[in-house]
């Protein structure tokens, strides 16, 4: 959960990618998951009437992959 980054910093090597903060692997997976969930929820509320939810899944997986790889 959220607090874990603190402790992990010593164990994992952190780095600074395009995200504004210094992150390690755990942080990036965490951010990816958060965005994945948020996008789906917002999509269901505002966009699903027009565009199917699979687009959201694809899109968020893509964003997640970019964040994990480059963040």
């Amino acid at each position: 959960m959220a607090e874990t980054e603190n402790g992990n910093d010593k164990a994992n090597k952190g780095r600074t990618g395009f995200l504004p903060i210094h992150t390690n692997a755990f942080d990036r997976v965490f951010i990816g998951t958060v965005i994945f969930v948020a996008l789906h929820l917002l999509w269901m509320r505002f966009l699903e009437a027009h565009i199917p939810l699979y687009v959201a899944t694809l899109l968020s997986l893509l964003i997640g992959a970019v964040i994990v790889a480059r963040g």
Partner: protein
Amino acid sequence: MRSNTIGWLLLAPTLLILTVFGVVPFVYVLVVGFADWNAFAADPTPHFTGVENYRRLVFDDQFLSALWKTLGFGFFAVASEVVLGYFLAQLLMKDVPFKGFFRTIHTLPLMVAPIAVGATWRLLTVPGLGPLPYYLERWFGIEFRLGTYADQAFVTTIIMDVWHWTPLVTLTLLAGLATMPKEPFEQAQIDGANKLQIFWHITLPMLKPTILATVFIRLMDALRTVDEVWMLTGGGPGAATRYVGLHIWRVVFPKTDYGYGAAMSLLTLYLTIVMCWLLYAALVTRRELPKAE
């Protein structure tokens, strides 16, 4: 060298209990959240329904308004506590007589059961008994009825939370202030900085880790407040103070709509984690500071 097996054995009961009562419920709620499961429906067994529960949830106005109210409550309560707590901590930094005595009194609310806090505030605010409605009406002509006016109920829950938890903020900030080195302040005074400048450029940055930890812990607690509010207003009038924990507990539970309730619980947990993480990230990285803890 010691054998690590014994170490793990000593740790095992703790890990076992935390897993059975902490992780298992979490996994369970995760699974149930994707199921249609109503104990009193025609078919009382769980079925996998994908994201159906969440689709319902994002259009559930009652739930969304409970969320917004919780966020408002948390924001106002924690903000007032930090401001008031800082003020009181600064005052206690001076050589006040009876310092220890004041501190003891202020630790008291921290130990009181939340449900008893709710009870005391109910006794204070109940019309016809409590001094608060009586004197507000007598001196200011304000009709104070928690059961009638939504705004009053909302504000009173915040004031109650401030009463309950400001001492924690005061004492943590006091600890932070007491450990600060004196030299930067003396130097700034020699350089002719005014009080506001000293506060903004020296006190605040140095106190930041403490403030951060306090806000973080307080926000987590404020967002999950149930007992006090339940005792004081019962979530009313209407749904004015039905914060999200109360909503899950009082509205979802009696309906035995387990799948939907699980989805609601999960979304609440998700939002709590995201909020705290955002706060953490925003406060830690805004300026270049050495690591928070």
